[in-house]
Each structure stands twice: as C-alpha cells, then as structure tokens.
C-alpha cells in the first residue's frame, strides 16, 4: 500500500493528520486479514513465543503485519520531508518521562523506532545519534553518519564520549550483523549486539537506558526498560539490554517485526547443530 501511494500523499497525511494515515493503515491491514508479512505467519510467531495460544499467535502475526505497514509509512514520511519531522502522536510512558542525564539511550529495530526521535527532542540539550538513514531529525538531535571505515566510526565514537562527558545524551541502535559484536541470548536463541553503546558506558561511567516504541492503534507509545548501570563488563550490559528487549517482546509480541523471528530461529538451529556435533 505504501509503495502504491504517492510519497507526497503519505507525507501530507503524516504531517496534517497522522491519526487518519496510521488509523487507515491499521484498518486496512485488519481488512486484508492474516496475510503473512514477509513470512511472519502465526506458526512462526508461535515458534518464537511458545507460551502463546494459537489465537494469540494469530493475533500477534496480524499485529506484525499492521505494525510493519505503519512503520513503513512513517519511514517514508520521515525520509521525504524537509521541514519538521512528521511524527505520529506519541505518548510517553511514565518509565520514559524522566530519563537520567547523561545517558546512553539504546533501542532495537522493533516497532516504530523512528518515533523515538520525538522523545529525544524533549531532552535538554543536544543528542548525538549515529545513524545510517535519510530521515529528518529534530533540531537538537545531531545525526552523524559513520559507516565508511574504522577511522570514521572512531571519530563518531570519540564525539559520543566527548558529549557524554559534557552531560549530554547519545542515542544508538544496537543490533549488528552476526560475526561482529557480542552474541547475547534472546527468546531461546541469540542475537548479536554492537559493543559501541556498552563501551561508551564503560569509558564514561554513564548508564544505558533501553527505549522501546510500539504502536497503540494509530498512535505510538514510548517506554523505557530498566536502566543498566555502568560497569566494566560489556557482555553483562549487552545481556541486560537483550533481557529488556525480551521482556518488551513478551509483553507485545506483535512488535517483533519480520527480521527477528528468522534470526532467533536460525540461531536456535545453529545451537542445536553445535550440540549435536559435540
């Protein structure tokens, strides 16, 4: 739907009437029924969340589809506007209403994570956000690239250290590709998390706060996971971050998206294979 709609129409609706846009997409995805989103069927959801009943897994699979549709529309709107970023209506949960300062804020590619910038713009002072998208950010969010080579990434890391030492916030997405980062357990499988956020915490002795955005109908709710205190152990902090993600997904399985179930199921198969081989 978001592909066939003209981008300008998505941007216009997202700017003028976000509830109309995201509400319509919500209704549309329900009308279409339980069509699987990129292979996320009720069976796959049930495989990741074995405690769910068949009806709950079916509902979660539909939510994955609806959430993906709305998140895609949000990405289109943020990627094709030059003025103020058109966020949906964002409700901030009490857990995220008073974030520690300074802090390393982290999130995962689940749910409408782009809407987290709405929370970042309420923070006092500047927020550094290394990113690799074409999204428009609020004025106080300094978005920097940094994916060309080690020197460029090192420069981004150094800037993040400097800003945290000055009392500001840094926002990072923490998933990475397999083979890099720290492998941490999640829902019976495992995912790789990049070291950056946890290394920043170790060097600056600043806490890590996981943030999660989820769709609540046409609106977005942002909540914070438990604050992860600074310590010298990056793996322990990464494991705590994955635990926070697990708690979020167990409470809202419809936000898991398309990529994570595949990643988790594959990691479980690899672990089974390794056990069999040994």
């Amino acid at each position: 739907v978001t592909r066939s709609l003209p981008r300008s129409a998505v941007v216009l609706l997202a700017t003028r009437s976000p509830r109309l846009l995201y509400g319509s997409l919500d209704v549309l995805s329900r009308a279409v029924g339980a069509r699987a989103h990129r292979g996320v069927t009720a069976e796959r959801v049930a495989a990741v969340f074995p405690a769910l009943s068949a009806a709950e897994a079916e509902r979660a699979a539909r939510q994955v589809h609806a959430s993906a549709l709305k998140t895609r529309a949000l990405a289109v709107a943020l990627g094709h506007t030059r003025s103020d970023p058109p966020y949906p209506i964002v409700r901030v949960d009490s857990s995220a209403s008073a974030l520690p300062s300074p802090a390393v804020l982290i999130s995962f590619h689940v749910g409408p994570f782009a809407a987290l910038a709405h929370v970042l713009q309420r923070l006092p002072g500047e927020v550094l956000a290394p990113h690799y998208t074409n999204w428009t950010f609020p004025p106080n969010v300094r978005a920097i690239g940094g994916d060309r080579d080690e020197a460029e990434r090192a420069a981004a890391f150094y800037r993040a250290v400097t800003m945290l030492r000055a009392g500001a916030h840094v926002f990072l997405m923490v998933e990475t590709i397999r083979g890099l980062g720290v492998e941490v357990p999640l829902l019976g499988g495992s995912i790789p998390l990049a070291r950056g956020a946890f290394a920043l915490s170790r060097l600056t002795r600043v806490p890590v706060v996981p943030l999660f955005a989820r769709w609540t109908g046409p609106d977005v709710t942002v909540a914070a996971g438990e604050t992860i205190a600074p310590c010298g152990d990056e793996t322990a902090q990464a494991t705590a971050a994955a635990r926070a993600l697990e708690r979020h997904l167990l409470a809202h399985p419809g936000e898991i998206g398309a990529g994570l179930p595949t990643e988790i199921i594959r990691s479980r198969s690899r672990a089974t294979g390794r056990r069999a081989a040994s």
Partner: protein
Amino acid sequence: VTPSALWGAVALEVRLLVGVGFDRARFPVVGRRPQRASTLGGVRDRHGVAATVREILGTVCPAVQAAGVEVVDDTRLGRDQLGLDSIEIAEVLLACEEQFETRIEALLDGTPLTFGRVVDHFAGA
C-alpha cells in the same frame, strides 16, 4: 627557587611516578613512565612519544602485543593492518589524549590513521 615551589615540583614528580590521581586501570602507563617524552618548546621527543603510544597500544589491545606485530610509521591502525576496530582506535586515542594532554580532533579528519600520524600529532610535529 622558593622551598614551596621546589616541594611542589617534587610532589608533582612523585605523583607522576606513582600514578596518584590517574585512572590506572585505564592508563597503566601513567605511573610507570618507561620512556618520558621530553618537551622542548611544545615539540616532544618523537622517540619517547612513539614508545608511549606503542605501550598504550599494547595496553588497550593486548592482542597486538601478543601477536608481535611490527608497528612502523606506515602501519594503519584499522582492521586491514593492525586489526583494531573503531572502538579500540578511539580508546587508544583517548588514552593518548589524556597522557599527552593534547586534543585529538585533528587526527579524526577522515584521513587513514597510521601509527606515524598519531606519533607526529602528539609529538607536535
């Protein structure tokens, strides 16, 4: 030279030698000072700086020291040569920044980081 100035100089030297006031877990070279990089008019002794940067490299990335990699001026710090990832590079530069009290922004202009460039930067060349 007044007695208080003399005592201040002695106290500073003792502090540098034993590492009091420095985070020794992060910068263990402070306090041991195997080769001091002497300063003359803002320009430090390049050999001394190189030795200190080598020691910091070995501390932040023990694997580099363990592998016995020969580090020369043209050696790039990144994965393609010395094998450091971006966080390790930043940690080495932050430790050097603290050790030499010299900011490192100019080193992070996008030009490939070599051992020689780092040493020249802190030597003030």
